[in-house]
């Protein structure tokens, strides 16, 4: 059974009614329960659970330290190309936005790689827009060949691929996949993606399954918060992660809770997701999947990320730049979105040590 079928089971599920029936008593019991099921997780996402964040936070912190230690993995994104044929109404790179389109040449990839590697990071996440003409799989492979010389773990955040294409990239040296469903609600998804290949909801939803079948070591899923009701979107993200862990027990599964940021085009989030909501989501997920990774990017401001270190996060980006070629020049061009935490890798490391956490620059070895 694919995750699409799991999702479909909730077609007529009444979230409002479920939340109305969650009591404070039930939430308190769930906070100490050993193994939570999907509905327990949903109960922890309820407004009622929002009144118990402190108790949830202590348990989440204990579980995170127990399973991951007092460490934080660091990585950085590298934008390879911003050519895109999609019409996602919320994205700075969408086809209708007027910005200088660019993709890195092999020489530029090498230059950016050298700059990033000098910070000590060994994990890199490479990103492109969706354009099979401008950034085909062969282009990604060529970039990976260069990046392999500098990094020991390479993840991709690109358009969804076929299983054989994932296998091809894995053989080249890719070990991680990040792919956000953006909106799990299929109707909302259709509205936000009026044209382009990304309209295909199911092909995107099932991409992590294809990647795992191809042997991908790590998969990271998420919903873009601000596009639709965050509670149900957080629920489906967690359910998706749990489905992947059940179906592919050997995979390292993680989620990201990205919130919308200002970007070219000026689409306004349809739903406000407050800091409290974000924290509740992270804590609920930690209690639901104690060994699941939680990635927090520089979409969040520095002061908030400092607090999230102790609230379940396991991986953070550092020294980020969302502009193609932005590290070795062109830093004034338009990025995919505006980042909120501009700290360098060294500054992040200092902050982590200050909080009693070890920054980890290398946590995988290409084998």
């Amino acid at each position: 059974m694919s995750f699409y079928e799991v999702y479909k089971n909730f077609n007529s599920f009444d979230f409002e009614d479920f939340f109305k029936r969650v009591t404070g008593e039930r939430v308190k019991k769930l906070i100490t329960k050993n193994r939570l099921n999907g509905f327990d997780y949903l109960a922890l996402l309820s407004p009622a659970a929002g009144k118990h964040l402190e108790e949830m936070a202590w348990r989440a912190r204990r579980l995170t330290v127990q399973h991951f230690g007092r460490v934080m993995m660091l990585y950085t994104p590298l934008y390879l190309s911003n050519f895109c044929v999609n019409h996602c109404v919320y994205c700075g790179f969408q086809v209708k936005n007027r910005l200088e389109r660019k993709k890195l040449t092999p020489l530029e990839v090498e230059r950016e790689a050298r700059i990033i590697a000098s910070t000590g990071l060994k994990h890199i996440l490479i990103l492109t827009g969706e354009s099979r003409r401008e950034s085909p799989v062969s282009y990604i492979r060529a970039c990976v060949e260069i990046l392999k010389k500098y990094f020991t773990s390479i993840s991709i955040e690109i358009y969804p691929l076929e299983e054989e294409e994932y296998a091809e990239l894995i053989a080249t040296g890719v070990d991680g996949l990040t792919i956000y469903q953006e909106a799990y609600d299929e109707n909302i998804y259709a509205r936000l993606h009026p044209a382009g290949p990304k309209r295909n909801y199911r092909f995107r939803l099932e991409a992590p399954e294809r990647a795992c079948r191809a042997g991908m070591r790590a998969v990271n899923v998420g919903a873009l918060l601000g596009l639709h009701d965050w509670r149900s979107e957080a629920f489906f993200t967690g359910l998706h992660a749990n489905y992947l862990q059940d179906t592919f027990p050997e995979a390292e599964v993680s989620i990201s809770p990205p919130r919308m940021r200002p970007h070219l085009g000026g689409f306004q989030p349809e739903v406000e997701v407050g800091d409290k909501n974000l924290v509740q989501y992270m804590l609920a997920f930690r209690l639901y999947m104690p060994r699941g990774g939680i990635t927090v990017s520089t979409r969040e401001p520095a002061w908030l990320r400092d607090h999230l270190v102790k609230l379940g996060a396991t991986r953070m980006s550092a020294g980020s730049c969302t502009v193609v070629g932005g590290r070795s020049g062109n830093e004034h061009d338009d990025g995919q979105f505006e980042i909120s935490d501009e700290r360098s890798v060294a500054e992040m490391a200092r902050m982590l040590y200050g909080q009693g956490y070890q920054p980890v620059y290398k946590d995988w070895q290409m084998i």
Partner: protein
Amino acid sequence: MNDVLKIGGQELNNRLFLGTGKFSSNKYIPEVVRISGVQVVTVALRRVDPEYEEENIAAFVPQDCVLMPNTSGARNAQEAVRIARLARAAGCGNWVKIEVITDNRYLLPDNDETVKATEILAGEGFVVLPYMSPDLAAAKKLVAAGAAAVMPLGAPIGSNRGLKTKELVRILIDEIPLPVIVDAGIGRPSEAAEAMEMGAAAVLVNTAIATAGDPVAMAGAFSLAVKAGRMAYLAEPGETVEYARASSPLTGFLRD
């Protein structure tokens, strides 16, 4: 008392082994080693980075310790073998702790794949210490495959739950002609002492030390507990009996 643990040609006087993955700073590693007298330290090859000396975890392990790289992240025997070879090539020595984990929810080891990897690596001259679920049949296969010791888990990794697999570990201690080292799950010094009293050859601890409020003090406590447990084992504890010694014996009427 000359109580030496021999593994892979090394003579060890200290029976506490240390894991290194969860410290808030690598700087704790040498301090922990100093206070506890630990001689064997395991490091995940995935974390070793010779190119970044200041943050390279392996560089924090004192030179006089046996560095035992582990294959954390291996999903099958083949990957474990590749990681072990990379570790040796990177100058991490001859010892390897095999970890093959096909289940990321509990991090329980896959004994079948572990046996396969052990056979290959022992054949290549590695000193192989496999992490395993305490199962007698698998342990016998590991012996036949050339393991230098077996490392059954006391409870799932990181759980701090103690010696939950006690009865199964006891069987391995009784039946397996190799050192049995309890790895994973030990949460408190008293549990380490318990394992040693039973006759475990050593215990390996990471989470309980690294995530303690004061890791150095906790390492000291573990070291004492391991020594105490070992001394008690060697002193041959009196038998525990389920019945009281009756003052009027039931068979006292029998004459020679």
